């Protein structure tokens, strides 16, 4: 069953056709990877899907709703949450507070209730804290709950960012290069975490350059080149695809 459907989406920046008539589906409960050489349009596509940018034409359907004209926060509240290629934590907040912000769409205290400290907010705050701690424990970083986010090691910051996204209880998690800047052991751990998140029932779409990670965890791979899809298949088949090899290694490789 399809959770996300990208249909004939195009985006142009001035003279550059960043994405050109792109279509693909993400099945519920799967891990799908987007790969392609630098400048292929992967991050642009992520920004289109998550509502940071609006497509020039085409349709993006998530869980049955057309989302291409919605803003980021509306899309997030529908259950599609992203991480960023360059980690975007709230630097002066603790790890726990960072994850607690992720509970925003599942709580409701507003300005008035907050200022008056209404009793229903106490229970809500306690639930937010408990749920956030649960997520930190699941990701194995509960020891750092009270640490200021900016003082963590790079690899741990990535995990916190994923934790914050998970706090939204997303149906679809968009991971923009989750292994960028990680060493081999950390990358391996990250692969394990992503598989674990999928096993919890979260569908995952990821952009990644680390091919060993992509080939190990993905159910399906989409290959982009100059804003167009040149292949979509299972990892093993992608490795043997002549067009993909040509794009990555040049004509001489064939």
């Amino acid at each position, binding site marked *: 069953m399809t959770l996300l459907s990208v249909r004939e989406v195009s985006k142009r920046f001035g003279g550059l056709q960043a994405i050109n008539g792109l279509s693909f589906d993400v099945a519920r409960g799967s891990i799908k990877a987007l790969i392609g050489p630098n400048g292929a349009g992967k991050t642009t596509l992520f920004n289109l899907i998550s509502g940071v940018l609006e497509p020039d034409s085409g349709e993006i359907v998530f869980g049955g709703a057309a989302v291409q004209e919605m803003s980021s*926060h509306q899309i997030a509240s529908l259950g599609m949450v992203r991480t960023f290629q360059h980690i*975007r*934590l*709230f*630097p002066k907040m603790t790890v726990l507070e960072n994850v*607690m*912000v992720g509970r*925003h769409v599942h709580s409701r205290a507003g300005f008035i209730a*907050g200022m008056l400290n209404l009793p229903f907010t106490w229970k809500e705050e306690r639930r937010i804290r408990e749920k956030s701690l649960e997520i930190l424990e699941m990701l194995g970083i509960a020891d750092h709950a009270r640490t200021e986010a900016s003082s963590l090691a790079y690899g741990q910051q990535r995990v916190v960012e994923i934790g914050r996204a998970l706090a939204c209880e997303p149906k679809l998690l968009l991971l923009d290069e989750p292994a960028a800047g990680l060493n081999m052991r950390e990358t391996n751990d990250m692969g394990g975490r992503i598989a674990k998140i999928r096993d919890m029932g979260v569908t995952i779409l990821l952009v990644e350059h680390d091919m060993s990670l992509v080939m190990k965890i993905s159910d399906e791979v989409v290959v982009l080149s100059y804003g167009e899809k040149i292949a979509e298949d299972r990892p093993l088949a992608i490795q043997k695809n002549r067009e993909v090899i040509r794009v990555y290694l040049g004509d001489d490789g064939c």
Partner: protein
Amino acid sequence: MRVRYFPVAAFAVLIVAIQLATHVTDSAYHLTQLTMTAYYSLLIVGLCMLIGYAGQISLGHAGFFAIGGYLTAFLTTRNLAPHQGKAVVSLLSKSGMLVSRPDIYGGDLLTVHPLLSCMAAVLLAVVIAYLVGGPVLKLKGHYLAMATLGFGIIIYRIALGTEFLGAADGISDVPGFPLALGLEITGKSSLRVLNYYLAWGLVILGMVLLLNLIHSRVGRALASIHGAEDAAEAVGIPTARYKLNVFVLSAAFASLAGVFLTHYNGGIGPSEASVMKSVRYVAIVAVGGMANLWGSLSMSLILNYLSLRGYFGTFDDAVFGIILIVIMLFAPDGLLRRHLFSDLKRLVSRNAADETAP
């Protein structure tokens, strides 16, 4: 009792201690400036929410202060007696929203009740904040500062150039503001001590509301907008709406401060709307540590008091300008930061470690 309210209690003790000190030293006249300081502090803590917590600058909050002060001054001094036949006036009169009092020439003056004028003033400030904040808060950094500065200048020029607002003289003979239980905001020296406690009581009430807010879901959302706006948006926080709401909230605090101080002083002049006032407010929030309500409040208490007592003399505005420049150069996160003590401790322990090293 939650930990967040301990400083509130400590602050209340400080306020009582100051009053007792002026009583013992027979210098109760200080309480007048301290009461005025309280009302300015109400604006400061509201502005601290906007600048320090949500990370949005405003150089136009003296404008909101003036909107509140001028509207209440105008409504409570405008004689409605000649218009008694009109439907609106008689309706207000029947609902008890008009008060009659003798003017200085012995004639009879029929004016709007301060309670109604106060509500009207805050309502107007809130509406204007929504209208201005909508487009302006799409800007960031310097551009937001310049746009709010422009708003402040517009309000100042309107106050200065409008005949029925008293032009350069402003509005005087504003009556006191009777609250419930026989309390009244007024500059009468017989009610000086009472008004001192009333003013700081209002500040403490405002502080409790804001402290609650920063420890709530909304406070976290505001801090996250300050930290990384795109990431806040990505986890479902409607950043534009939150920024607008906190802007309006701070404008409401500013206009309330304007209303109260105008009734306390018995008048308002265009200097309250001037740009240098806005700069002063931002400087106080900056030196108070930006995201630090208590720091801003204590700096407001000290600096406003010194300024109102005339310690800065003719350099009054220059002092606040210099404070702002120095803070931006050497401590852009503010002087009384949240982590000041832990930073100092780290600095000291590092030095100690250096000394023990061979």
